[in-house]
């Protein structure tokens, strides 16, 4: 399972960077979305994927028995998803406002503040 996930994550990262390098601001935001999804999947995968073994502690014991799934990366990913969601909501509003002001879906028309 892990090698398959690794390939999928790699493709996600590559697609995201490709989208971010294009001139359209909409594609820029799509790139950011894919990038945060790729990072979340990566965290999920690096901690090891264990099927059907919830980390529950049996009654009367102080530690789970056997090879159980690690709950921490799932909590981390959940936090990261929420953060990514809020930031992307902001980014979408930002590109809409930018489009209203600049009247173009083109990053090359937005270089007045450079240099």
């Amino acid at each position: 399972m892990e090698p398959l996930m690794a390939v999928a994550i790699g493709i996600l990262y590559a697609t995201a960077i490709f989208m971010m390098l294009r001139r359209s601001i909409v594609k820029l935001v799509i790139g950011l979305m894919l990038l945060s999804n790729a990072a979340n999947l990566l965290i999920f995968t690096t901690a090891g994927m264990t099927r059907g073994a919830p980390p529950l502690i049996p009654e009367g014991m102080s530690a789970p028995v056997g090879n159980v799934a690690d709950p921490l990366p799932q909590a981390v990913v959940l936090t990261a998803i929420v953060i990514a969601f809020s930031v992307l909501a902001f980014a979408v509003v930002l590109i809409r406002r930018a489009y209203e002001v600049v009247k173009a879906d083109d990053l090359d028309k937005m270089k007045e503040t450079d240099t």
Partner: protein
Amino acid sequence: MRPEVALPVLLPLLSGAISLLFWRSRPVQRFIGIGGNLALLVVSLWLFVGVMEEGYITLEMGGWPAPFGIVLVADVLSAVMVLMTAIIGLLMGIYSLATTGRGHEKFGYYPLMHLLLAGVAGAFLTGDIFNLYVWFEVMLVASFALMILGGERAQMEGAIKYVTLNLLASIIFLTAVGLTYGTVGTLNMADIALRLDAAEHSGMVEVLAVMFMVAFGIKAAAFPLFFWLPASYHTPPVAVSALFAALLTKVGVYSLFRVFTLVFDQSMGYLQDIMLWAAAITMITGVLGAAAQFEFRRILSFHIVSQIGYMLLGLALYTPLAIAGGVFAVLHNMVVKTNLFLISGITHRLLGTYQLKKMGGLYRERPWLAVAFFLSAFSLAGIPPLSGFFAKFVIVRAGIEAEAYVVTGIALAVGFMTLYSMVKLWNEVFWKTLPEDNNVPEDATPGGDDGRLIKPSLGMMYFPVMMLAAATLMIGVFAEPIMQTMNLIGDQLLAPEHYIEAVLGVTPGNEVEWIDQVTAPQDGAQSEGGTP
């Protein structure tokens, strides 16, 4: 229970929440803007005094023991940075009263300011690498919103670059955190350090170190990753620019200091040269970029980049003295750069422009403002006896001791070029006579967004400027006690075993047994949770 460690984070969150409740009442928001930041200053002082006595104060959040729960750690570096954040926050609160337009206040300027301070303080105090990411995001979201308040075209253009590159940095950071967890199975920074020391030194560790360096390098605006900064920092209102200049890049620098002295101290041998040259080129490109500019705030933005180079140089030399100098440079820069931005705000109000060509004559009109600018600008260039001289002196001395002559020479040369830039500002803004085509606003209290005059005006703007100008002079005159604190920071950062001991309660040398003991109950299991 040590509440003073958590309070610098909780208080601004509370002030932000309360001012959100009073969304429609500007007077209440303004009052909380000052009162909340004053309270933050008090608790930061409390924390600072405690840390100076004990060295390290830790607080385990929610009562979970150290490597499992989130732990807040204050060492001298954290405490000093939090204290500076509180001071700058209070002064910016006062300055904002006079400069923030009604439109900005109506759309949540003060709650966002509190949220930003909470994020910054959280990043300085946390001892958990994922928690550091969370605080970075809190800070970033607040800064995004502050940056586009007002919604002008330049702000939108600047914000797109700022948002994209900072999100990219965050994702690199998050990826590195995920890979770190996959490699060592913990997120507590002290615990990561222990396990990396005990583990076989593999190529993966170098990859992680470089990923963290790139992520924090973007945040800190180091060469070649700084392009978002000069493209965006001059676009928001000047109080926001000053707040960003004081705090945001410094959080990146702080994270570099923390991660590369505590977690990846072994990788420094390999990364030292890269960091050294990145620091040198950061200094040069920043100061050259500034030389080409004729807009007040853009010159200052490029100088932020240049000064970041000095701080990184302190880290890259990697001796206690150099690190002390690097942190000294951070403090000095927080005071001086903020003040220069604030002065640019006052000159804008007086002359109605940021373009140097159209400015002039302020030396005759406003001599005290000229004095404040003179102190700050020449402190930035490193003229004795101001604060910048000592920061630069310590770094240069550490560089000579480390026999890094070329880089040290570059640092000195960049000092001269900074002086050139500052003299240019002095000549154009204060010394030369006012050009005739300038239409100076007749009233020095311009209207807010709804056209009404903003009342408590220039006095409120002068107060923080004078305070910060006095601070740079005082830091220079009383450099000795400050330098002692900096030396303490240098010693603490290069002896990470004390930090680890304070957090985990494990004495160095026993880490292997300690790791065995922590992970013993589940043989071969990857789980972290559920240990007694």
